[in-house]
């Protein structure tokens, strides 16, 4: 097989706005019949560079050569003429069409003959070893099947150069293996494949060469066989990084949240959560694994009072045992009721009776801290709004998946975003910006948020810094339960490890941490237990210290909730 160069990039530069340089003077090449990984952290310009080859963007400077001749790729149509096809991270398929219909969609230079197309697709599938059902509608397909359709779409148009943008991000370990087999088969057929990724183990497994980008610049292209994961990391980050997650054993775990039979139905009547049962314990990180959209978001939102619960209970154990009761979060009436139920003892250990005492005497006793809880308080969170939960003195912190659309307000500065949780405090009609401002400064300093100052809009910060602001605020609320959905998505390696460490610190402080993640290696290294969800059901809970990646992968696609061992 000849190893001629099929794509050559020379001095490619692409800017967005006056300050952002997505790619600076990038020169690299792709050879026939090779798998080239394009490796780099989020925001390093991998996707932008590939989009320029695929005709989505046009470079500001520099040239692209295909098979030795200089080309101007102005549109994806141009790219196809040069036999380049890109499979994007977000699929561009029509849900109500079948696989075959999607494949032929937009082809204008040949007769529309679905049967012939199906034959060609089947032949292709045999050649490269993938499975595709031509008549299946897209909306009935799993993510991996949809991805196959996207790949077929590109092959069908005769592409010799395939660009895959983070193809493994949404797949289970088993599906990834299948995809890699297909890619290898295509390589043997002389096709050139570019894979955008930031997962090192996959780079090592699949690629022949690795092109590393950092901050828009091409650092080097190396042979996979002559490099190592740690060397690649160093090239990617620009410095040596310690990739260790500390995982101490949980100390004195106590049930903090108990979810029983939780069912949530969406407006169309579909059960997005179906009979979920689990417990979150203090001093422990509970991981939640699953294919994206398996009900993870709804689960966290149901606990925090943002989703209406159709069935089941969410019980919170307020750590009040041997702590004094106060009127800060409780009305006089409620305290009297609890006293009548025998929930308190006095400092000396005697039972409390308010009988025969005047309201003033009771108030004084409470204010002096004489009245102590016997046990942890049991509070039903179902049907309570986020505000009601907070007013009960319960510190549920929640780092939502949609950082700027839910956790923060993009157009507000860091100080005003700090206030979101605390602005209501006090009876004044005006805002107190002093303490939020101090908190903002503290978070900027301690979490090394790269920002011109505390009065910069969070929208202007990079993904990692936005996340530091959000996680910082949620941790500053001194939570008893901390829930984080995909907290490291889009973050660079250093920021990711900082977030892992913050979560571990919270665990050490006795917080019950719930971590929804997508990277199974991280879940296995960080969590104590991992609960796997699929289609709104819990398909299993495993011990993260002993479980295998494949085991979790199988649970992620399992449809029947059998063998559950919560």
């Amino acid at each position, binding site marked *: 097989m000849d190893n001629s160069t099929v794509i050559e990039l*020379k*001095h490619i*530069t692409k*800017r*967005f*706005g*006056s*300050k*952002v340089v997505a790619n600076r*003077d990038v020169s690299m090449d792709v050879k026939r019949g090779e798998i080239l990984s394009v490796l780099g952290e989020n925001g390093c310009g991998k996707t932008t560079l590939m989009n320029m080859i695929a005709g989505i963007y*046009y470079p*500001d*400077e*520099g*040239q692209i050569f295909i098979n*030795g*001749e*200089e*080309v*101007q790729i*102005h549109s994806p149509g141009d790219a196809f003429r040069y036999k380049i096809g890109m499979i994007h991270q977000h699929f561009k398929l029509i849900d109500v069409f079948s696989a075959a219909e999607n494949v032929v969609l937009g082809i204008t230079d040949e007769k529309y003959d679905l049967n012939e197309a199906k034959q060609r697709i089947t032949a292709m599938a045999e050649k490269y070893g993938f499975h595709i059902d031509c008549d299946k509608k897209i909306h009935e397909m799993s993510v991996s099947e949809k991805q196959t359709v996207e790949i077929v779409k590109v092959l069908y148009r005769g592409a010799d150069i395939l660009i895959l943008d983070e193809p493994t991000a949404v797949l289970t370990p088993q599906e990834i293996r299948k995809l890699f087999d297909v890619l290898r088969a295509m390589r043997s057929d002389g096709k050139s494949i570019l894979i955008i990724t930031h997962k090192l183990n996959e780079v090592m497994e699949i690629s022949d060469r690795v092109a590393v980008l950092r901050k828009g610049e091409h650092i080097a292209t190396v042979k996979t066989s002559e490099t190592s994961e740690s060397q690649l990391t160093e090239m990617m980050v620009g410095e040596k990084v310690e990739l260790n997650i500390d995982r101490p054993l949980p100390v004195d775990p106590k049930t903090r949240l108990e979810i029983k039979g939780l069912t949530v139905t969406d407006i169309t009547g579909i059960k997005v959560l179906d009979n979920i049962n689990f417990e979150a314990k203090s001093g422990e990180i509970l991981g939640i694994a699953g294919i994206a959209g398996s009900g993870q978001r709804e689960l966290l939102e149901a606990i*925090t*009072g*943002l989703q209406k619960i159709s069935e089941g209970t969410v019980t919170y154990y307020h750590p009040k045992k041997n702590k004094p009761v106060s009127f800060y979060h409780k009305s006089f009436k409620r305290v009297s009721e609890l006293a009548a139920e025998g929930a308190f003892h006095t400092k000396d250990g005697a039972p409390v009776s308010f009988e025969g005492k005047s309201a003033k005497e009771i108030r004084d006793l409470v204010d002096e801290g004489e009245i102590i809880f016997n046990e942890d308080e049991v509070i039903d969170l179902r049907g309570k*709004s*986020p*505000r*009601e*939960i*907070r007013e009960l003195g319960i510190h549920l912190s*929640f780092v*939502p998946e*949609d950082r*700027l*659309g*839910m*956790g*923060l*307000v*993009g*157009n*507000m500065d860091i100080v*005003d975003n700090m*206030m*979101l*949780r605390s*602005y*209501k405090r006090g009876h*004044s*009609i*005006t*805002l107190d910006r002093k303490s939020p401002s101090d908190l903002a400064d503290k978070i900027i300093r301690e979490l090394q948020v790269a920002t011109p100052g505390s009065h910069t809009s969070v929208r*202007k910060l990079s993904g990692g810094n936005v996340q530091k602001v959000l996680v910082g605020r949620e941790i500053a609320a001194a939570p008893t339960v901390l829930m984080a959905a995909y907290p490291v998505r889009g973050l660079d390696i250093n920021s990711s490890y900082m977030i892992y460490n913050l979560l571990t610190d919270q665990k050490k402080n006795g917080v019950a941490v719930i971590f929804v993640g997508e990277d199974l290696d991280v879940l296995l290294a960080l969590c104590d237990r991992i609960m796997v969800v699929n289609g709104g059901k819990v398909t299993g809970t495993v011990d993260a210290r002993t479980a295998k990646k494949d085991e979790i992968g199988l649970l992620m696609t399992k449809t029947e909730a059998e063998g559950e061992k919560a």
Partner: protein
Amino acid sequence: MMAVQEQKKEKKEPLFHIVRRTDISTKTKAVIYAIAILAGFLISSLICWAFGEDATPIDFFASMFTGAFGTKRLIWLLLQDMALLLGVSVALVPAFKMKFWNLGGNGQVLMGCLASIFCMFYFGDLNNVILIPLMLVASLAAGVLWAAIPGIFKAYFDTNESLFTLMLNYIAQGLVAMFITIWVKSGSGVLSPLSAGNLPEIGGNRYILIIVVLFLLAGLMYCYLRYTKHGYELTVVGESPNTAKYIGINVKAVIIRTLILSGAIAGLVGFFLAAGINHTVSTASANNMGFTAIMTSWLAGFNPLLMFASCFFITFVNRGMQEVRMNFSFENDSISNIVVGIIYFCVIAVSFFITYQVVFRKNETKTKAKEEN
């Protein structure tokens, strides 16, 4: 290989392209707007030169300034008009900040007017000490009603507020027309100014009360939006309803509360128009300020302090053009509208340069690469 390269000339690379700005300094922004305003005036003066009698650009600008600042009375009128426009802008801004697109400023002001005139017409016998507060309360209530109705519908049924408020303008006009036919028996359709319930002059100056109150209100609105919990909540609701839910803001209550405030201020402007200036009402009493104020508050970036500048500017153009029209014998009002339109257009058009910038493709690297070949 060189031959192949020469063949590939059919597609030229673009000379420049347009990219979104990531950031823009206040200074650049100010300069861009200043250029736009200047360009607007220049084009306008040229048009007047072409169509007016001896209206050279210098005469045009001179007339403009005479019209706006020529006499003491003109200055007071300028300030009064500016204050009214500022008042309506202040009324709209909290709703806009909440991304509630209230296009019903006209109707809300008009309802305020109508309510005051209603009191003046039916309770004209009362002493002004009782009548004027009654008028004030009636005007505020009418403005609140006209703003809160679409607010409630938005909060509970997510009804489109733009259409709703827009339609209420016509209902307000219809109500005014109806009352005028009831009140004016002659059938002329014009209600002559009423003598009851006129606002007192302060120190012999009939402008100052309105100006001071509305200017103060703009300052207070700035503080309300910037420093109060209410202002903070409505900004969060406007920026991100999901964040508002996430932190437990009662979104419905905030929408309705804000619209009540918005309507009350519009009603107050209506009260001033009725009790302090016109003493009568017509379907055009709001003077289209409900729409002009959308422009002024948008130009000011929804900042009540900057609205002083935008309201001053718009009022200056309007009043200056009245003089231009008279001096150069333009027979009807359209020249004013043309000029105002041109200046608006220029200001809006440059927002393109605020959001985007033009980048030219560099060719040096290309030649360099060729040499390497």
